[in-house]
């Protein structure tokens, strides 16, 4: 018996034993707390209701609206094409597949923006990318998009431009809502098929 083989066998055994005695280690795939705090204090994660409305109207294929309210609230009203991930089931593996899709921008919304922001912090800590929060939530949505107020005469030109857009958006969304309440548009959810693998082998 060659001594070198003996050494190889021992080395391999040693490495395998090392695996058994390694201390438990979690969290490594999670985001560092420093980085999370750094991102948390930036306002870049907020999108306005106007931006969301614009994206919906344009049919932006990268937009993925996520409603973090409870299921019942979602059933009574939701934004177009939104997915419901109730806040308390954010970590449910069945829902995890909706986050972290390449090229998709996830926009969380809730009644206001706190719950959505909390979802953002948790999901970001888990390492998901391209997450946003709809500032003001549905309350803002109603106030700005569905029931826009005419700005004062003295308001800036920008505000009037916003108002013009909101007027159009308001008609778009209320009109579309009436339409879709009697004819439910079908939503195809594409999920991973389990076990449709191209199986190969030696």
């Amino acid at each position, binding site marked *: 018996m060659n001594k070198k083989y003996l050494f190889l066998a021992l080395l*391999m*055994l040693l*490495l*395998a034993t090392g*695996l*058994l005695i390694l201390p438990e*280690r979690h969290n*490594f795939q999670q985001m560092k707390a420093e980085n999370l705090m750094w991102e948390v204090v930036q306002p870049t994660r907020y999108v306005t209701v106007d931006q969301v409305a614009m994206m919906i109207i344009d049919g932006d294929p990268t937009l993925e609206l996520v409603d973090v309210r409870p299921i019942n609230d979602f059933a009574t009203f939701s934004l177009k094409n939104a997915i419901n991930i109730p806040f308390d089931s954010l970590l449910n593996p069945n829902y995890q597949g909706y986050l972290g899709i390449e090229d998709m921008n996830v926009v969380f919304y809730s009644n206001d923006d706190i719950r959505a922001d909390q979802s953002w912090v948790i999901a970001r800590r888990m390492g998901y990318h391209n997450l946003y929060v709809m500032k003001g939530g549905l309350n803002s949505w109603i106030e700005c998009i569905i029931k826009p107020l005419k700005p004062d005469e003295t308001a800036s030109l920008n505000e009037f431009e916003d108002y013009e857009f909101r007027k159009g958006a308001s008609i778009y969304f209320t009109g579309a809502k009436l339409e879709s309440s009697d004819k439910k548009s079908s939503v195809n959810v594409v999920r991973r098929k389990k076990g449709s693998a191209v199986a190969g082998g*030696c």
Partner: protein
Amino acid sequence: MGPLIPLEIITGHWDFVIALLIGGAFGYILEASGFSSSRMIAGVFYGYNFVVLRVFFTAMIVAMVGYLYFSYMGWIDMSLVFVLPTYLNSMLFGGFLMGLGFVIGGFCPGTSYTAAAIGKIDGVVFAGGVLLGIFIFSELFPFYEDFYVANNLGNVTIGEMIGVSNEVVAFAFVVIAIVAFYVTSIIEKKVRKNMTEYKFE
């Protein structure tokens, strides 16, 4: 491709380039281990040459241990690794068929290409047969689909099935591999002593 992709040193778009490099390395190792010789491969069944077992067992335990270490250090994302679904019936039958092809043809699918690459005619024929077999299998698939998908255990690993951690499984395999290396080396010596039709340098 750990540790480069999880640590965001390179992007996932390099997948195919990396696959090409790994494929090339794999072919090189097969040829370098002498696997383009069908005599070497069939030797496992006659007991005079266990190099196939040694190479694959070594590759397996090194990969297992390395993978677990890499995942421990966060270089590889465990959850992204695809686990093949286990169709028990078809896997048992397939394994049997594969072994039969192994001993008759003297190649396994991968090594037939390395043999073809160095210009062995039997390797070329074997490789052609593989393609023909794939074609026939796919065309006739509806006939035995029921058998193929029967007894589906799902995407399970050995550890999940018997309820121990992957580390324990890896350790057990290392032990099994080392024992197997030792036992086969003894068998090899005995068989070779009595063999006259094939000379060992």
